[in-house]
Every structure is written in structure tokens, then in C-alpha cells.
């Protein structure tokens, strides 16, 4: 500042500014000095452009030539001229000659410094700018420095400048950069490293609300009398409870009921998944036995088309159960309602090796594990499923008792007879349900080696018995060692009820005799004959023909018989009824354990032998040789014990003495049926039955004894 004011002073002195009358008025006022400098420039311009201010006075020549002499002095006109001060030296007041003429009207501190000044040097050294920089750069830097110093207004400078500034401050800056685009400088006050300028993820809000705990409203009133009444009521209740407690038993009953409900609920936990588990089990089985299931449904032996009188059995599923492996299959029975379900009883035919027994229910849908399992203390020798109530199963035990199981109840038999009420004294060989009697009671028959045939009836959850017949031998009573006479008794092993006349039944005995009996006569047989040389194992009526039945025996034979229509008197006339001849005799070369008619044809039957073979015959095709003779047992020593046709599907199940049940599919030749004429609807059952009977009769005609025929 000082230099500038200095120059101004010079100007003022050099150019007398007397031309402006406005100024002249307060011409001695020093405050006008600044304006004067501005005016100086204007004057210069005016002379050139000749622009006059509007308020300029028009002066005549004379007036213009008139001279005013005024001298500008440096004296302050306002400064007092007569200042006196007391002088202690001269001990009097004296006028001071030196009056301060300086008057400061405006002062502004600049922030610029000269680049050559000491301060500039120091500043440069501090910022590290080398001395050798070009004037341009230095001035730029200076400007920046001054800008930075000057402050806050520069805060908004963009990042680009910062970057440039940084480069400038590096020890070896490039001059070209500065010259090309002008250096951008950092903002010292709001500066952040580039590396820290990362992208910040935007924030988002998310909220969830939980359900508030459930609430309820409750209201009541409390008064003294209400409290009193409540106590009174409660007290009365307590009194009543006390009275109840006096009666014993009821409480206990409640307890047991409670316990029952508890067990039920706990059982439910497991049983809840039992259905799903069963479905899964069956699905797994379906997968693992898929090929067998396909065979069961679709496989037909193609070789059958090229041979007339031969057939085969295709083994399908094999049913085994670990615990039943040491037991023999003692009987088989298909469930009348569910055609894939069958019951198997297990026991032992060995007199020396008697152990427990078992009943298993298998389904073709699950060959790997039984559906139901019942274990018993005594061997089970036979069983029968009720034809109308498929959950009722009658069984006969080795110890001579009979029992009834309900499949729906897992725990043990519903009924089991004891020594007190009619139990047999020898193994029960066969049981058979009968139609419900007139009072709708379930009833069944049993046959045992003790020679009794007993009729059992379930009356009000009790098993009552009635001896139907005793198999007395016609021979004279045997004489005991001490002279007492004991009536010899035949040992029944098998029986079968006539399909139509259900009062009539045939009985096979261990002595090889066949008795035809009636429920009506308990003392005497309708007919009796020596059929076999050894024990008869099975007797079965033909499903179609009312007079034909088949027997099998340990004497290696299967025989087919015709029931004689002779009355009892006629029988007496005939010379030897026991010498009656069978219509057919088949020798199977081994003990025949079971024989069964096929349900679909009157002429087809199958038998199993102790050497592990299944024989299938169709009398319509071959009266002398089996159509099929096939080894079914897996091991040579295994004996086949029983067989049963499925009532619907063309399969048989065969049981052996090692606890295995094998299912076999019959090839087409084994299940030939009369050809249906094309275009004609399938004959109704009655017609078909007649056809079947006629078919069998035709065959029988050929073998009947000519003399016999005459008599009939």
C-alpha cells in the first residue's frame, strides 16, 4: 500500500485538478483524493473522445483563461495550529511547532506479498517449491497459497484440483501439465485420500413384525357375598366328592380308563406314521420285486402254445420269516375278501420236536415281511379264515385246543378252549368255519386225532362245544392187558363239508378210512370205506360236481371218489362197501401232503409231495399223467406240506416244512377253460357250473364201472 499511495500523491501534485467546479467547492477536503485519482483516468479519456459530462459548465473563453492560483500543501487544514504544551525545562507553556499532518481515511491490509520479499522466500521454502520455478508456476502457486490463506470461499473446489495440487507438490512435477490445463489444486480443508474414496453401499430398511401373543379379555365383579357364595358352592362340591370316594372301584375304574387313554394316545404317536411307513415299505418292495410283479401279471409261458398236454409253474415270490424258519407250514388259507392276503399257520409235524407255533399273514404286495404276526406257545396245526368275516380266524393247536383270533386285535386269541371246556386230547388237524347258526352265532368244526369231531359256537364271548361224532371203529373193542375193553377209535385227520348239503361231510382218518357223515347222526356214519393204506391227509369236495371228492394219503396216492347215492339199506345189501373202488388213482411216488381242486375248473387239481414236487393234473387233457410235475422246494430234503389255489389269480401258494411259502404262477395249459365263442357274452355262473359238471361227467362216464353204471 505505501507505494501506491505514494504514486497517487505524485499524480496529484503533477496534475492540478482545478477544472471541476463541483470539486472546487470542497476542494480542500482530502477525502476527495481517491476520487481524484479515478477522475484522472477519465480526464485522459475525455480529451480524446470529447465526451462532456451533462453537468459541465459552459464557460466562455475569458472565463477559461482566468487563472486561479491555488497551492496544494501537505498540511492538514484541520490540524490545530496552536498547540501549547508545558515545558518543564523552561517552566512555561510553549507552542509546539510540529503538528501531525497525517490523516488516514481508509486502510486495508492486503494479503499479497512480493515474491522477492523475505516472507515470500520463507513461504516458498516451507511449501517446498523450488526457487528455480518459472514465473508462471510461481505466480500460480502464489495465487493458490494466497487463495488457501484467504480462505473459506474456496472450500467447494472439486477433487480434480486436489489431484493437480498433489502432483504439483510432488518433488518432480511436470511443467507441461501445469501449462496445458491449469493446475487443479487441493482443498486443504476438505480433502481425502483417493484410496479412501470407496463406494458405500446404500442402506435399506427392512422390518418384520411378529405376531403378538394371544390375548383374552376377562371380567368379573368381586363382592363379599359373591366370595361367600363361591366358597359355599365349592364346599358343597367337596362334600359330594368325599361321598363319591366312599364308593370304591369307581375311582379305580376312572384310573384304568385314564391309563387306557394314555396308552392310546402314546400308541397314536407311533401308529400315526405306521400307515405312511407301510406305504413306503410296499413301494420299496414293489421296486425291488418289480420283475416278479411283472411276471405275476403278464408272463405267459410261450412254450405252452406248442405242446398240448404239458404245463409249467413259474415260481414267483418266496415268503420267509426269520422266526418261522424252523417251523413247518401246517396250513394255508387265502383271505376271502382281500385276494392278495393269505394266512399261514406254523407248527411242527415232528412228534419229538414240538416248539411254539405261529400265524403269519402275508400280502402279495409285501413279500419281504408279514402283515400280521402272532406267536403261540403251542404249535398250530391248522387254521381257517371266516368266509364272511375275514378278520375272524379259527386255529387248531397241537395241544388239542382250538382258538379264535381277531386280526384287528394284536394281542393273542379272542377265545381259546381249555381242558375244562371240550379241548381235544390230541392235535387238531383241521378246523372249518360254518355259516352262522340261526341265532347268528359264529361257529366252526374241528377234527382231531382223538377221534372227536367237535362243533364250537361262540356265544356271548364264550366258546361252547358240542361233540358231533366219534369215529368209533367197527371192529370189536380192543382188550387191555388187564381185561378191560376199550373201544378203538379212529384218528381223524381231515374233513370237508359238502358244498351244497352242508350237513354232510367226509372224514379222512389216520387208518386210511373215509367216512361220510352227517351232522344229524352222531352215532353212525352214512358211509364208510377203506380208501387208503395209510393216513389220509386231505379230503376235498369238487367245487363244481356235487358227488366227487378227492383224497390224498401218505401211501403215495391221490384218489378221486364218487359219493354213492345208495341209501343205508342198500349199503347193507352190498357185499363189501369197503371194497369200493375209486374213479381215479394217481401214484405220485411219495407221500402226498395236500391236494386241492382248482377253483376255475372241475377237472384241474394239484398235489404236493414230500419230495418237494408239485403235481398238476387236468383230467380233461390227460387222465393218467400230470400236466406238470415240478420241483418247487429249494433244497432236496425239503418236504412240501400244503398248497392252496388263489380264488382269483392263476397262482398257487405252496408251503414247506422249513417255514417257506412259495407262490407259483400256473402256465396257460394248466388253467384251460372251455373256449368262449366269439361274439357270445361270457356264460353266467350257473351255466358255467353246468358246463363244468358236464365236462367232468363226460370223463367220469368213461371210467365208471360198467356194473356200477347199470345199477345207477
Amino acid at each position, binding site marked *: 500500500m505505501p507505494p501506491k499511495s505514494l504514486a497517487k500523491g505524485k499524480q496529484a501534485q503533477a496534475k492540478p485538478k482545478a477544472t471541476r467546479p463541483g470539486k472546487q467547492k470542497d476542494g480542500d477536503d482530502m477525502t476527495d483524493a481517491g476520487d481524484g485519482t479515478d477522475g484522472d483516468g477519465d480526464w485522459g479519456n475525455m480529451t480524446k473522445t470529447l465526451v462532456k459530462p451533462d453537468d459541465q459548465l459552459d464557460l466562455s473563453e475569458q472565463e477559461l483563461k482566468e487563472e486561479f492560483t491555488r497551492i496544494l500543501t501537505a498540511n492538514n487544514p484541520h490540524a490545530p495550529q496552536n498547540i501549547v504544551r508545558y515545558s518543564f525545562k523552561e517552566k512555561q507553556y510553549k507552542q509546539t511547532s510540529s503538528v501531525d499532518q497525517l490523516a488516514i481515511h481508509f486502510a486495508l491490509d492486503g494479503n499479497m506479498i512480493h515474491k522477492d520479499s523475505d516472507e515470500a522466500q520463507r513461504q516458498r521454502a516451507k511449501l517446498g517449491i523450488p526457487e528455480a520455478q518459472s514465473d508462471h508456476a510461481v505466480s500460480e502457486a502464489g495465487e493458490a497459497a494466497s487463495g488457501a490463506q484467504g480462505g473459506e470461499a474456496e472450500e467447494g473446489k472439486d477433487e480434480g484440483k486436489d489431484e493437480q495440487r498433489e502432483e504439483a507438490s510432488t518433488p518432480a512435477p511436470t511443467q507441461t501439465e501445469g501449462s496445458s490445463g491449469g493446475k487443479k489444486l487441493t482443498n486443504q480443508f476438505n480433502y481425502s485420500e483417493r484410496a479412501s474414496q470407496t463406494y458405500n453401499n446404500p442402506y435399506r430398511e427392512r422390518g418384520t413384525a411378529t405376531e403378538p*401373543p*394371544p*390375548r*383374552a*379379555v*376377562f*371380567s*368379573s*365383579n*368381586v*363382592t*363379599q*357375598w359373591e*366370595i*361367600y357364595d*363361591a*366358597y*359355599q358352592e*365349592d*364346599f358343597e362340591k367337596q362334600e359330594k366328592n368325599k361321598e363319591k370316594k366312599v364308593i370304591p372301584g369307581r375311582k379305580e375304574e376312572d384310573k384304568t380308563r385314564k391309563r387306557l387313554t394314555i396308552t392310546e394316545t402314546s400308541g397314536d404317536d407311533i401308529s400315526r406314521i405306521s400307515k405312511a411307513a407301510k406305504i413306503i415299505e410296499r413301494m420299496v418292495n414293489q421296486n425291488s420285486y418289480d420283475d416278479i410283479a411283472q411276471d405275476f401279471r403278464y408272463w405267459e409261458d410261450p412254450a405252452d402254445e406248442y405242446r398240448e398236454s404239458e404245463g409249467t409253474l413259474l415260481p414267483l415270490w418266496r415268503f420267509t420269516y426269520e422266526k418261522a424258519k424252523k417251523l413247518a407250514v401246517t396250513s394255508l388259507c387265502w383271505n376271502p375278501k382281500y385276494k392278495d392276503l393269505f394266512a399261514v399257520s406254523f407248527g411242527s409235524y415232528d412228534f419229538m420236536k414240538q416248539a411254539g407255533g405261529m400265524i403269519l399273514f402275508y400280502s402279495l404286495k409285501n413279500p419281504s415281511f408279514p402283515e400280521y404276526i402272532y406267536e403261540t406257545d403251542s404249535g398250530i396245526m391248522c387254521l381257517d379264515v371266516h368266509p364272511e368275516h375275514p378278520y375272524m380266524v379259527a386255529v387248531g393247536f397241537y395241544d388239542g385246543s382250538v382258538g379264535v383270533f381277531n386280526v384287528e386285535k394284536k394281542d393273542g386269541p379272542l377265545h381259546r378252549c381249555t381242558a375244562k371246556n371240550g379241548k381235544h386230547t390230541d392235535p387238531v388237524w383241521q378246523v372249518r368255519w360254518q355259516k352262522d347258526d340261526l341265532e347268528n352265532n359264529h361257529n366252526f368244526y374241528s377234527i382231531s386225532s382223538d377221534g372227536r369231531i367237535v362243533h364250537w359256537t361262540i356265544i356271548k364271548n364264550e366258546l361252547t362245544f358240542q361233540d358231533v361224532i366219534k369215529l368209533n371203529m367197527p371192529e370189536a373193542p380192543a382188550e387191555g392187558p388187564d381185561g378191560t375193553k376199550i373201544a378203538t377209535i379212529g384218528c381223524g385227520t381231515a374233513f370237508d363239508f359238502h358244498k351244497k348239503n352242508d350237513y354232510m361231510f367226509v372224514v379222512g382218518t389216520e387208518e386210511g378210512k373215509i367216512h361220510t357223515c352227517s351232522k344229524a347222526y352222531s352215532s353212525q356214519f352214512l358211509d364208510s370205506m377203506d380208501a387208503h393204506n395209510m393216513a389220509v391227509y386231505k379230503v376235498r369236495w369238487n367245487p363244481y360236481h356235487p358227488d366227487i371228492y378227492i383224497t390224498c394219503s401218505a401211501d403215495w396216492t391221490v384218489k378221486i371218489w364218487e359219493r354213492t347215492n345208495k341209501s343205508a339199506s342198500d349199503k347193507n345189501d352190498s357185499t363189501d362197501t369197503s371194497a369200493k373202488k375209486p374213479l381215479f388213482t394217481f401214484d405220485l411216488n411219495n407221500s402226498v401232503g395236500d391236494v386241492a381242486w382248482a377253483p376255475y375248473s372241475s377237472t384241474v387239481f394239484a398235489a404236493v409231495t414230500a419230495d418237494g414236487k408239485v403235481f398238476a393234473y387236468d383230467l380233461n387233457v390227460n387222465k393218467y399223467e400230470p400236466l406238470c410235475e415240478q420241483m418247487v422246494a429249494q433244497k432236496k430234503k425239503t418236504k412240501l406240506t400244503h398248497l392252496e389255489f388263489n380264488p382269483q389269480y392263476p397262482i398257487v401258494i405252496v408251503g414247506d416244512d422249513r417255514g417257506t411259502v412259495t407262490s407259483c404262477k400256473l402256465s396257460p395249459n394248466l388253467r384251460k377253460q372251455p373256449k368262449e365263442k366269439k361274439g357270445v357274452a361270457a356264460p353266467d355262473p350257473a351255466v358255467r357250473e353246468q358246463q363244468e359238471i358236464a365236462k367232468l361227467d363226460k370223463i367220469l362216464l368213461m371210467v365208471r364201472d360198467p356194473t356200477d353204471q347199470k345199477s345207477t
Partner: protein
Amino acid sequence: MAEQTEEKKDTSESKRVHVYPLIRHSDMNDEMKTEAMELCVTACEKFSSNNENAARMIKDTMDKKFGASWHAIVGEGFGFEITHEVKNLLYMFFGGNCAICVWKCS
């Protein structure tokens, strides 16, 4: 009415005055119920003359045992309509003349 009840009381008092705790209404589980009931009995016996203190004790103890925001009313005559959290209500009589209502609602 009052006279009648008085008469009734007179006749019954000759029989017996019941003081045992009697649960009028509760939807708590058994464990909680017995604990709350015992607490109420203790509180009412301890502050037999000051229902306010009894209520405070019940409330504080229940807060400690079963979590915050329990409410308790102890009195001989009052009416109420409350909103409570399900399974957290006990309304009982005790001592023959005192009603206690404890519930939770936060």
C-alpha cells in the same frame, strides 16, 4: 339385600368360615397356577392389613419369576375388565373375604 346376606352369613357362620384359597378362574398351566396361588397366599398373609403392599409383592415376584408386566389386584370388592395374555390369568379368593386377580399383559 344386605340384610338378607347378613342373615345368611349368620346362619352359615355357625357352620364354618372358609379361608382356604379358592381358584375361581385360571387358564395357567398347573405348575404356574400352583406357584402363583402359593405366592398370593403368602402375600396376603404377610400383608393381611395392607392390600396395596400385598398386590405389590405379588406383582414384583411374578415379574421376577415369569417375566415382566404382571398386574395384580387385591381387594374385598371391585369390578374389573382386563385384557390378559392367554395362559396368564389367575382369579382367586382367599381368606373368605379377599379376592386376588393376577394377570400378565405387556
